[in-house]
């Protein structure tokens, strides 16, 4: 081996020691994921492509609505202040746009748990008449006509033509990277902070009264459950019953995570509660003589006024500003700037 070779190998070694793959660090106390998180460089590139698609109204029929229209990054990807989701042509859906994070742990998606895989979730809003009103065929055609997306595809999937697969996979990989794990609660779990006395008491109330459904550390079991609410007489939403048609499935909705609740109002599947205090009041005093045949949540939770205050103190430790304001999830300015320059 010549001196030149030795230098070359040394230089490459140095370069590799400085160059690192983007990594997703998951806390050790999180359970195993359902959806495989990106690990390879190519997966992160695909997730970046998914990020561009997520913010691009090209996915909707009239190019007015993007995923981000109802899933705003500054609100933990929920639709703050909107009880029901919006779609093309001023159409309004029947359910509240859920917040998007920690989806790699989701066993099922949507309020009724109808979607069984993160890859396939995007088909539903893209093709629903009251959301994006598109067809997957037309979306693929539009992407094939776009120079910037053609180039992006050749980077992410070399020598391939746009197919539905690429749209779905890119979007799911991006959404899998939306991980909320930097709350005060997480800092406490990592030993970085100690809870105040009030937070500690609230944590105890939480573990006694709420943890069965909103199980830590994800603050959801990911299961369907009866939320004890009376049916909205206009929406007539029967939850999972429309899909399962079994008596026990009436009024079952997916248990949402309590993480980032301060960013995601209004609450519940139809956005009927504006404040978290209203949600707590419902569970403490609500009417549980429910139309659902599911026996869960048939009685108010025994939480006193004092415990309610303590619980709120704990719930405030579940908001993840670092996640919400993380620019790596936000609108990919550079991608769209390049696209704009190309069209000049």
């Amino acid at each position, binding site marked *: 081996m010549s001196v030149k070779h030795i230098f070359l190998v040394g230089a490459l070694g140095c370069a590799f020691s400085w160059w690192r793959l983007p990594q997703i660090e998951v806390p050790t106390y999180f359970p195993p994921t359902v959806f495989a998180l990106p690990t390879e460089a190519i997966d992160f590139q695909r997730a970046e492509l998914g990020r561009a698609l997520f913010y691009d109204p090209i996915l909707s029929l009239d190019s007015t609505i993007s995923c981000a229209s109802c899933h705003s990054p500054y609100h933990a990807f929920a639709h703050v202040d909107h009880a029901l989701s919006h779609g093309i042509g001023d159409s309004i859906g029947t359910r509240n746009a859920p917040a998007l994070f920690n989806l790699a742990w989701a066993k099922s998606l949507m309020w009724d748990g*109808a979607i069984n895989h993160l890859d*396939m979730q995007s088909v539903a809003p893209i093709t629903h008449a009251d959301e994006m009103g598109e067809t997957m065929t037309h979306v693929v055609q539009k992407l094939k006509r776009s120079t910037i997306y053609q180039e992006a595809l050749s980077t992410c999937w070399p020598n391939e033509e746009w197919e539905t697969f690429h749209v779905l996979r890119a979007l799911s990989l991006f959404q899998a990277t939306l991980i909320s794990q930097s709350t005060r609660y997480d800092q406490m779990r990592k030993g970085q902070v100690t809870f105040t006395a009030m937070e500690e008491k609230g944590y105890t109330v939480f573990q006694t009264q709420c943890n069965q459904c909103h199980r830590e550390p994800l603050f959801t079991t990911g299961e369907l459950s009866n939320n004890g609410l009376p049916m909205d007489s206009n929406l007539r939403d029967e939850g999972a019953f429309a899909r399962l048609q079994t008596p026990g499935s009436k009024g079952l909705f997916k248990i949402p995570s309590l993480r980032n609740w301060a960013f995601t109002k209004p609450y519940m599947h139809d956005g009927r509660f504006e404040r978290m205090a209203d949600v707590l009041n419902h569970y403490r005093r609500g009417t549980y003589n429910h139309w659902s045949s599911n026996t869960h949540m048939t009685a108010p939770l025994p939480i006193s006024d004092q415990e309610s205050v303590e619980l709120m103190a704990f719930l405030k430790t579940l908001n993840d500003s670092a996640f919400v304001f993380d620019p790596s999830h936000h609108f990919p300015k550079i991608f769209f700037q390049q696209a704009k320059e190309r069209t000049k």
Partner: protein
Amino acid sequence: VRWILSIWGCFAACAAIATDSLKVELRIMHHGQLLDLHAPVEGLPYALHFESILIYVGGLHAAPNQNDTAYYLLGVSPNWQKNHFVSPLQVNEGDTVYVNWGVDSLTQVSGAMRGDLDPQIGMYWAWQSGYISAKLEGRYVAANGLEKPFTFHLGGYQNPCCSARSRYLVGSNQTITIEWNMDPWLSNYDLRAKDHLMQPGSAATQMFVDIIPASH
């Protein structure tokens, strides 16, 4: 050397008998003849013609340990026309091949798929998250004399209504021809009573199981 040559000869002979690939052909039949989608169906108390007849078949396996996990969409619709597929399975004359009618439950939860399982083909229950096992669509003349559409999206993907059913076929000279007889459905089901079924579940699964080709 003689032994080695004999063993090699046996292997060579077996390899020669085994086919390189298997062609599976679906023939949609009515009254013993190929169904013509461009013509009205005859022999019914009301006028009817099909626009789409589609069915998923795949998940082939044959002894010893041969598997083709792919799924193929066979049939005819305005956007789709495929009456056969070629599987990489190597099958000898008389070998039994097992196929799934409808997409199996594992594939249903395996994420984004390509080819015949691309959701843009229209065989996906977008808000139900699963593949439609079979589609029967067309138009018929209702009791009031008006022409109406009929739409049957059959199958189910979730327990207890998983519609995928395994049936066996016997290999024959590189080709298996399956005759899918539509007579039982056409004669037993009265569209004038109900002309649509679009919800995955027990009814759609039962109808699917009733109409799929039998083992042969």
